């Protein structure tokens, strides 16, 4: 794996001057992913969402790689088409270089709207890497709930009020859905652990087939925490087992990081504005339910790893 000195020598492929919020995690994902892939040419696309909107405001672009704008639902389809064209040109001898293909999508564009296109691209076996920056709601349009929003989280379409205490349902486990496609590489990573993320991007690109990485990306606006804590909030989600760092390589599960001591989920929840109402005594039962769900998911993951 490339260390920080080697990454620094490659130079940034995602420039400053984009219009993301101060302390945005999505741009950290894009920067680190392009740095990790930077020893060979990369073609990128991005589903409509925060990352696309802040990085490509006309007439500026923050992408220092060939970039294709695609609609909300089809970034996986777009990049798979580019990859198919590249394969054909390479066969004909017009293109000689090794080129890598990357698609970025938020949780709205991946868990909900782009799921069909993503599933199709994974099944067809294109040589591409899909990175989902999961900030757990539609942040770009003003924090609406998505199927990645965790239980109890207040969003504008699942507000805390008299009828419901934030989102009622548990979140969908997309990483498992993609792992069920039987593709060479599926992983979960986090903003706040650059070495884990860099390692996984390098591994995914070296596999030479469809690969998927879900990255938990703290959003200072939608989650409601001070901007300097972006990386810290990601690490805390890992230390509470809310977001386990694991990979599925050729069908084999492996946990990459086990916290020395599992922290209670309240440590992570209570730092965020969106879970503030859970501090009230009448919502104690929800906290217990959330903790039980996290423990169950961790236990099931452990079983899969030992199989």
């Amino acid at each position, binding site marked *: 794996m490339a260390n*920080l000195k080697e*990454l*620094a020598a490659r130079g940034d492929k995602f420039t*400053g*001057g*984009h219009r993301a919020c101060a302390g*945005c995690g999505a741009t950290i994902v894009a*920067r680190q992913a392009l*740095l990790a892939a930077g020893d060979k040419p990369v073609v990128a696309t991005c589903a409509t969402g925060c990352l696309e909107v802040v990085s490509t405001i006309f007439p500026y672009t923050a992408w220092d790689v060939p970039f294709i704008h695609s609609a909300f639902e089809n970034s996986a389809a777009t990049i798979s088409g580019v990859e198919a064209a590249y394969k054909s040109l390479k066969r004909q001898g017009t293109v000689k270089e090794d080129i890598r293909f990357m698609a970025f999508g938020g949780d709205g564009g991946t868990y909900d709207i782009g799921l069909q296109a993503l599933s199709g691209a994974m099944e067809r076996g294109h040589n591409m890497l899909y990175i989902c920056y999961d900030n757990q709601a539609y942040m770009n349009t003003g924090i609406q709930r998505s199927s990645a929003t965790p239980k109890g989280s207040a969003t504008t379409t699942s507000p805390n009020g008299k009828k419901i205490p934030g989102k009622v349902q548990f979140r969908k486990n997309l990483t498992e859905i993609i792992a069920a496609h039987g593709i060479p590489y599926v992983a979960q990573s986090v903003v706040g652990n650059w070495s884990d993320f860099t390692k996984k991007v390098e591994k995914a690109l070296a596999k030479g087939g469809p690969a998927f990485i879900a990255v938990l990306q703290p959003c200072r606006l939608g989650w409601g925490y001070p901007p*300097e804590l972006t990386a810290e909030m990601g690490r805390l989600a890992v230390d509470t087992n809310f977001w386990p760092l694991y990979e599925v390589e050729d069908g084999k599960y492996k946990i990459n990081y086990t916290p020395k001591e599992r922290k209670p989920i309240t440590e992570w929840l209570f730092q965020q504005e969106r879970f503030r109402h859970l501090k009230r005594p009448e919502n104690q039962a929800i906290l217990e339910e959330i903790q039980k769900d996290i423990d169950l998911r961790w236990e099931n993951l452990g079983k899969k790893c030992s199989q």
Partner: protein
Amino acid sequence: MSELKKYKELALGGNIEKSGTAVDFKTGDWRSSRPVYHPENCIQCLFCWVYCPDSAVILKDGQVTGFNLDHCKGCGICAHECPGKKKVKAIVMEEEVK
């Protein structure tokens, strides 16, 4: 704020002919506090550089030398991630005053 381009300055069909042009756009005036670098406490771990969302940490030959205040939005991630030397941070956030 950066000047908006007139239509005659744009390429035909509104094409963007070069990549990475966002460097010309200044976001430094969003900032309410600025990072101040104290090189004597810096161990050159590069954590500030790898976690900066705005690519605003200036490196020279792989060494941190300061910040690009045209792009820095003052989020403070660099100061928070900085391990410093003997627990004294090399990056401290100071409020912008005019």
